[in-house]
C-alpha cells in the first residue's frame, strides 16, 4: 500500500508502459484531443503489449497483474493521454474482468482471449433517465426461445464505436417491485442484429476516447450470452464498479501528476518582477500543496488496490480513492492553469487539456455524490 515493492518483472512492465506512453502517446495526445480521434494504431500496439489483458488470468490469454501495479499502469498512461487511459481502464476493469468473475467457463473461453488480444470491451449501464439511480434503468430484455430480445438505449458508453463486446444491463423483470433485482447482465457482440451505435458525443475532455449512445431495436442476444444469474445484473455492475473506480482514481492521479510537472517546470522558467515565479512564496506554497494533495490520492489509491490484492473487501476504499483523487485532479489542474496565467488558458499549453480531462473523473463510474453515499453508508453501518 505505502510503497508496493515491485518485483523485477513488475518493474519491467511499468518501464515498458512508461516508455510507450512517452514515445507513442504523449506526442499525439494534443492532436487526438483537438480532432477527437481514437488512436487505433496506438491501441493496437497496446494490445500487442498486453495492456488489454491486465486483469485476465494467463489461462485465458492475459497477464493478471497485481492491482497495485495495475493502478500504476493506468496512472502512467493517463499522464500521457487520459483519453487512452480510460479506454484501457474501462476495458480491463469493467469490460473484461466481470466476465472472469461472473462468467461460465464456456463464456470465459469464448470471450476473454479475444478481449486480451484484439477486441475492446464496453460497459453499458447508464441511460438517458438513469444515471446515479442506475437501478431504475428501463432497457428491456424479454425471453424468446433461445434468445433474449433487447429494446431500449444506453448512454455514455466508452469505446462504443470501437468495442467488440458490450456488457449490457437490462431489465428482465418489469415488475416495479423487483427493483434492482429485476436486472440481468448480457454480453452483446458487435454485429448483433438490431444493435447499433447512435449519436457520438462531442465531449469537453477525454476526446481521444469515443463515447456514444447504443440503440437496441429488438436486438437478439443468445441465451448463452447472459452473464451471471437472471436478476443478479445489478450486483455484477456494482461490484465491477469497485474495481473500475480504482482505475478512474488512478487516471485522475495521472492527469494531476502531468499537470503538476508542467506547472513546476513552467514556474521555474516564467519570470515576473525580475525573477522566476518559483521564487515567490505564494507559488512555492501552492506547488507544495499540490504535491501533498497528489500524494494523498496516491496513498488512498494504493491502499484500495492493496486490499483488492489481498482479497479483502475494498468497495468503500475504492470510493474514497476515487472521490479524493477526482476532486484532487480538478484542484491540481485548476492550480496548474493559474500558475501558467493567460498561457494556461490556451491550447498551446497542455494544462488546458488536463483541466478538461480531469473534470469527468468526478462524474463517471459514480459521481462524487454517489461515492459519498457509499462512504457514509460504510461509516454509519446499520443506521435506520
Amino acid at each position, binding site marked *: *500500500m*505505502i*510503497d508496493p515493492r515491485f518485483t523485477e518483472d513488475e518493474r519491467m512492465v511499468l518501464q515498458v508502459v512508461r516508455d510507450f506512453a512517452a514515445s507513442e502517446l504523449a506526442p499525439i495526445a494534443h492532436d487526438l484531443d483537438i480532432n477527437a480521434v481514437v488512436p487505433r494504431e496506438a491501441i493496437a500496439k497496446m494490445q500487442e503489449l498486453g495492456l488489454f489483458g491486465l486483469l485476465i488470468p494467463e489461462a485465458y490469454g492475459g497477464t493478471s497483474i497485481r492491482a497495485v501495479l495495475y493502478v500504476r499502469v493506468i496512472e502512467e498512461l493517463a499522464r500521457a493521454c487520459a483519453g487512452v487511459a480510460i479506454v484501457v481502464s474501462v476495458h480491463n476493469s469493467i469490460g473484461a474482468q466481470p466476465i472472469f468473475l461472473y462468467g461460465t467457463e464456456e463464456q470465459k473461453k469464448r470471450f476473454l482471449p479475444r478481449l486480451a488480444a484484439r477486441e475492446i470491451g464496453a460497459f453499458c449501464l447508464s441511460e438517458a433517465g438513469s444515471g446515479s439511480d442506475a437501478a431504475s434503468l428501463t432497457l428491456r430484455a424479454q425471453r424468446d426461445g433461445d434468445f433474449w430480445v433487447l429494446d431500449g438505449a444506453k448512454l455514455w458508453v466508452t469505446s462504443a464505436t470501437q468495442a467488440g463486446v458490450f456488457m449490457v444491463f437490462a431489465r428482465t423483470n418489469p415488475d416495479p417491485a423487483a427493483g434492482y433485482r429485476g436486472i440481468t447482465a448480457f454480453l452483446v457482440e458487435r454485429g448483433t442484429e438490431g444493435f447499433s451505435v447512435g449519436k457520438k458525443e462531442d465531449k469537453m475532455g477525454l476526446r481521444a476516447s469515443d463515447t456514444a449512445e447504443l440503440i437496441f431495436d429488438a436486438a437478439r442476444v443468445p441465451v448463452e450470452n447472459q452473464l451471471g444469474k437472471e436478476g443478479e445484473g445489478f450486483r455484477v455492475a456494482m461490484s465491477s464498479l469497485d474495481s473500475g473506480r480504482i482505475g478512474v482514481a488512478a487516471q485522475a492521479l495521472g492527469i494531476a501528476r502531468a499537470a503538476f510537472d508542467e506547472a*513546476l517546470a513552467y*514556474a*521555474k522558467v516564467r519570470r515576473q518582477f525580475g525573477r522566476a515565479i*518559483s*521564487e515567490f*512564496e505564494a507559488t*512555492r*506554497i501552492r*506547488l*507544495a*500543496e499540490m*504535491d*501533498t494533495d497528489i*500524494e*494523498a490520492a496516491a*496513498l*488512498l489509491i494504493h*491502499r484500495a488496490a*492493496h*486490499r483488492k490484492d*489481498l482479497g*479483502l473487501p475494498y468497495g468503500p*476504499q475504492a470510493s*474514497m480513492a476515487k*472521490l*479524493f483523487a477526482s476532486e484532487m485532479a480538478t484542484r491540481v489542474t485548476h492550480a496548474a492553469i493559474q500558475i501558467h496565467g493567460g498561457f494556461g488558458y490556451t491550447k498551446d499549453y497542455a494544462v488546458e487539456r488536463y483541466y478538461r480531462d480531469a473534470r469527468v473523473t468526478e462524474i463517471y463510474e459514480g459521481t462524487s455524490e454517489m*461515492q*459519498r*453515499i457509499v*462512504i*457514509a453508508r*460504510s*461509516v*454509519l453501518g446499520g*443506521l*435506520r
Partner: protein
Amino acid sequence: MESLLSASQIRLRQEARSLAESLLREGAEGRDRSAAFPSEEIRALARRGYLGMTGDPSHGGQGWDRLAASLVLIELARGCASTALVVGFHALVVCEAISRSASSALKSRHLPSLIRGESLGALAMSDPSALGAPPDPATAWTEGDRLILRGSRESVPGATAADLFLVYAQVGSEQDGGDAGVPRTRRETTGVGASSAADASPRRRALLLVPRGTPGLRIGPGSPPFGVRAAGVADVRFDECVVPSDQELAPPGEPRAVSGPILADADLVVASQAVGIAEEAFEKAVVRTKERDASGAHVGSRQSIQWKLADMQVLLDAARLFCLRAAIAADRGEAGYAREAAQAKCFAGRAAARIADEAVQVFGSAGAIADGGIERHWRDAKTTELNPTSREAALLSMARSLLGGGS
C-alpha cells in the same frame, strides 16, 4: 492498513488504546479546563516504559520502531492530545536526538533518567517570529569552556514541567553576540541553510541540552494556548544562559543535518497527534449521528450530515496513511523521511482541523459548549497546524526539496 502492521505493532497499539481509555480519557476534559499538566499520567506511562518507547534497550528503552511509536502516539492522543504531545516530543525528539548525536558521556548522563521518565525532556524549537519561516536558531557564543545562550523560544510544549531542554542554537563569536551582526533581512533571504560568506566570524548551528536550573534559563509564564492546554506550554528565555560546552550534541556540520532529523521526528509526533485528535472527534461525530433529532429522525439520515462524514473519513484515512508512510520511511532509513514527515504533518494537521471543525458542526450548537465534549478537539486540532512549525513553514520546506533555493 492492518495488513502492513506486524503482530507486535498491533499489540502495542492495542495496549496503548486500553491505556488511553483507562488512564487518559476521563481526566482530559478537566485537565484542559484547568490547564493542569498531566504529571501523574506521565509517571504512570513512564512506569510502563512509554517515555523510552524508541530508546535503545541498552539504556533501558523499549526499542520500538517509528511505526509502532506513531501508532501508540495516535492512541494516546485519542485519550489526551496534550499528554501525547509531551510524551512524543520527549521520547521521539529529545531522547532520539541524544541517542543519535550525543557523546557517550552525555548519553549516560541524561539518557537513562529520560528513558525511565525520571526526567522530562522538551523541545525548544519555535521562534516567536517563525510563521512561514523555518525555525530560527537561538543565538550563542563561546566563552572558554562554556556557551552563552541568548534569545527566546515561544510556546514550548512541556516547558512548565521539563527537566531538560533541547535547544537549537546558532553559535558565533562573542563580539557579534552569536549572530547579532547579521541583519535580520539578510538571514531571511539566505535562509537557515545558507551560510553567509560575507560574515567573517565562524558560525555554526548546534543543538544544546540545557537543564532546568541552568543560570539564566527562565521559564514562563506565558499564557496557555487555546489548545493542548494541559501540555505545560510556556515561553522559554535564555538571558545569557550559561551552558557547559560539553552539553552540546556532537555533529555540528551542515545546518540542516543538525535541525533536519529533529524536525522530522517532531513532525511525525505532531502528525500522529493530529490523527489521534481527528479520530476522536470523528468517532464522537459518528456516535452523534446515530442519535435522533427533534423530529425523531437519525441525525445521520440527512445528506448534509452524511456528506460531512464521508469527507471526514477520507481525510482521516489519508492522514493515517501519510503517518504510516513517513514512519515506515524512518524505519527503513530512507533519505526522504524528513520530507514525508513534513508532508504527513501538513496534511494531518489540516485534516484534523477540518475534521474537528465538521465534528462541531455535526453537533450543532451543542458542539460549541465547553463541556459538550467536542470543542476541545477543535481547539487541540488547530494547534497541530502551528506545531512544531507552522504549516506554511513545512510547506516551504517541501517546496525547497521540489524547487531548491528559496527561504
